[in-house]
């Protein structure tokens, strides 16, 4: 694993969460408020900017590197099992 551009940008990211905080055991009001704050701050990659490159594993084996998909549009959704 994994993330070339993304790892560098993550290292420089303000307010990033530590592993235990990120993988919380209980959903709390503060998590909802964090989403609302992130929305107001337009947190994320701005339209028109290069999408940070990464390579992530597939559950069935192998991996996908985003930059290898150049030449065609890509839909990228972040989501949870729950």
């Amino acid at each position: 694993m994994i993330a070339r551009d993304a790892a560098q940008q993550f290292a420089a990211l303000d307010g990033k969460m530590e592993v235990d905080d990120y993988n919380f055991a209980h959903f709390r009001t503060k998590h909802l408020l964090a989403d609302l704050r992130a929305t107001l701050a337009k947190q994320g990659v701005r339209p028109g900017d290069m999408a940070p490159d990464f390579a992530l594993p597939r559950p069935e084996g192998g991996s996908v590197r985003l930059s290898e998909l150049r030449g065609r549009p890509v839909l990228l959704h972040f989501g949870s099992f729950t």
Partner: protein
Amino acid sequence: MDVLVRQAHPGPGAPAYHSVEEKLASARAYQRDEATPWTVLVDDLAGTVHQVYGGLSDPTYLIDADGRVAHYTMWTHVPTVHQAIEALVEQGGRGVVRGGLDRLPHMLPWMTAGWRGLQRGLPQSFTDLETAAPGTASATWLGYQLRPLLAPLTLRATPLPVPARIALLAGVAAAVALGARRRKRD
């Protein structure tokens, strides 16, 4: 592509992850349960890619053929994403489309679609959400039960006009008031 992040609403059947192997197993279950025809990827335990892309619970990026962000839906809303895809195709697969950003929390579609995820962490996922934001877990269950009736609203690409929203809220408030009155009488 779907990138699997943390458990948003953990519970006994879907506890918080402690390893990438657990995430990979969870992704395999997701692929099996949902019969996903699209690519599923698994972020690392720290959520490195997720956090770099903003860390929101349910965002969607449309990336153009040059690798630039064409549209960013901060709270995924399928009709909005669909319109962005159509716009990108129309302009040859490159450039920013439809203003580039949708940050409207589309709560009604979330209420009708969210129950399936919440179900996997029951009962803790329900009680945690209900405690964190009273009424939302119950509303998610109700929204899921009523999803065929709510489809004309949840599948709209544009929000209802303000007068229609006020009328809808007034109708819900009246129904709740009538129910409470009847309950008091009984």
